[in-house]
C-alpha cells in the first residue's frame, strides 16, 4: 500500500523552477528519507505532499486519493508536519501541543490526555506550564514534534528536524521518530541532507537534485551502491551542500 504518492510534480517560485516532473511513492508504514543538497526542492516537495501548497502540474495522492476542494482538509488532517525551525505559538507548552487536537474539535479531556501522552513520549513531562517561547532550540523542536505526534498522524512529515540541534537532542528526536513508526505505525517522510541519519532511520529513500528526482530505492542501496552519478556525487561528498 502506498501512503503518499507524487505524480509528475512541477512547482516554480516565479521564474525559478523548484521541482520538475517529480514522481515517487512512499510505502505505508515506512520511514522514507528525502535526500539532496540545499536547494534541491526537498522542503518544497514535502510541503506539497502535506497539501499545504498546490503544484503547478502533477498531483499528490494520499492513500490513493487525490485531494479535491471538498476532501483537501480531511486528507491534510491525516498528516502532520514538523518544520526545520520550530515555530511555537505564544502560549504554554501544553497549549501548543493541544493545538492540532483543539482545531479538530476534540473534547477537552481527550485533548488533555493525548497532549500529556505526546509530551511523555517526547520526554517533556513537567514542561506543560512553561512558556513555549522560553525553551532552548532542542526543547522547542521536541515540543514541535510532540505537537505533531499528539495528532497520531498516519503520515508524519519531518523537514530536517535535527539540523540545528546538539547530538543529545538529535538522538532523542530520532528515538521518537522510530517509536512513532514502530509503535504507532506512522509513515514517516524525513527530509534530510544527513545521509548517516537517513541510513540509521530510513528503509527507503529518494535523492533530489536541482528539482529533479535522481534516484529512489532502498536506503542502503541508494547510499552504498548508487546507480545515478548525481547520487554517487552526493554520497561521496563531491556535491557541495
Amino acid at each position, binding site marked *: 500500500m502506498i501512503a503518499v504518492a507524487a505524480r509528475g510534480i512541477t512547482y516554480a517560485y516565479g521564474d525559478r523552477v523548484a521541482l520538475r516532473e517529480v514522481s515517487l511513492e512512499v510505502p505505508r508504514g515506512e520511514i522514507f528519507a528525502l535526500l539532496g543538497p540545499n536547494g534541491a526542492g526537498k522542503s518544497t516537495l514535502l510541503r506539497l505532499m502535506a497539501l*499545504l501548497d498546490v503544484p503547478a502540474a502533477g498531483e499528490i495522492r494520499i492513500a490513493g486519493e487525490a485531494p479535491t476542494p471538498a476532501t483537501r482538509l480531511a486528507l*491534510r488532517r491525516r498528516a502532520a508536519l514538523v*518544520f526545520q525551525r520550530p*515555530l511555537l*505559538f505564544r*502560549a504554554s507548552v501544553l497549549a501548543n501541543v493541544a*493545538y492540532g487536537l483543539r482545531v*479538530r474539535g476534540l473534547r477537552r479531556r481527550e485533548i488533555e490526555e493525548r497532549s500529556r501522552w505526546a509530551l511523555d513520549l517526547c520526554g517533556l513531562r513537567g514542561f506543560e506550564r512553561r512558556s513555549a517561547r522560553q525553551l532552548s532550540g532542542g526543547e522547542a523542536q521536541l515540543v514541535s514534534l510532540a*505537537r505533531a505526534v499528539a495528532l497520531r498522524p498516519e503520515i508524519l*512529515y519531518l523537514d530536517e528536524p535535527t539540523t540545528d540541534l546538539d547530538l543529545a537532542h538529535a538522538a532523542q528526536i530520532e528515538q521518537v521518530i522510530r517509536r512513532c513508526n514502530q509503535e504507532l505505525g506512522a509513515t514517516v517522510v524525513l527530509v534530510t541532507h544527513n545521509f548517516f541519519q537517513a541510513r540509521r532511520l530510513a528503509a527507503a529513500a529518494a535523492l533530489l537534485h536541482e528539482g529533479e528526482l535522481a534516484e529512489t530505492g532502498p536506503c542502503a542501496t541508494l547510499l552504498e551502491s548508487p546507480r545515478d552519478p548525481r547520487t554517487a556525487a552526493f554520497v561521496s561528498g563531491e556535491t557541495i551542500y
Partner: protein
Amino acid sequence: MQDILSGFAQAARLLVSGDAQVWSIVALSLFVSGISTVIGCAIGIPVGAAVGLRRFAGRRLAITTLNVGMALPPVVVGLLVYLFLSRRGPLGFLALLFTPTAMIIAQTILAAPLVAALTVAAVNGVDPAVRLTALSLGATDRQAARRVLAEARFALAAAVVAGFGAVISEVGAVMIVGGNIAGHTRVMTTAIMLETSKGDFALAIALGIILLLVAFAVNLGLSYLQQGREASP
C-alpha cells in the same frame, strides 16, 4: 505663576471633594469614547485582519486608504458628520445633532480606520510561518487566521489602546457635533477648552489631570497585558 499654583490647588480640591460637575463630565467622556472605541474595534479589527491576511487585487490601495484614514483630522470628521446630521442634511430627520450619539458616530469614524490600519500592521508583523504551522496541524483557513490574530494579540491590544487614546483626547469632532452643552454633551476636552478660554483654570486643570490619569491607567493596563500573559494559551 501664582495663577497656575492656585489653579492646581483648586483642581485638587475639586477632585478630592467629588465635585458632581467634574465627575459627570468625566463619566460622559468615558462613555462616549468607550462606546466609540468598542464600535471602532468591532469594525476596524475584522477589516484590518481581512486586509492583512488576504491577498487580493487592490490590497495596496486598501492599505493606503486605511493609512490615510488613520490621519483623518477630527475637525473635518466633525464637519462631515455635522453636515449629515444637521437639520438640512440627509440624516437630519434623526435629530441626532448635539447629542452624545452624534459624538459617538464622529469618534467611531475616527477610531475605526486607526484600529484597522494598526491591525493590518499587527497581522503583517506576525511570522508567516505561524499560519503555515497552524495549517500543517490541521487548522482550517479561518482557524489559521484566528491563530495569527492570537499571535498578534499584544499588537492588537495596542491598536485598541491607540484608538481609545485618539478619541478621548480629540476635541474638534466632539465640539462640532456635540456643541459642548453643559450636562448634556460636555466632555473633558471641550470643557478644558471652554474653561481655559474663560480663564477658569481650576476646572480645566482638574480635568486635565484626570485625562492624564486615564491615559496612564490605560497604558499601564496594556503594559500589564504584554508582560503578564506571555504563557497563557
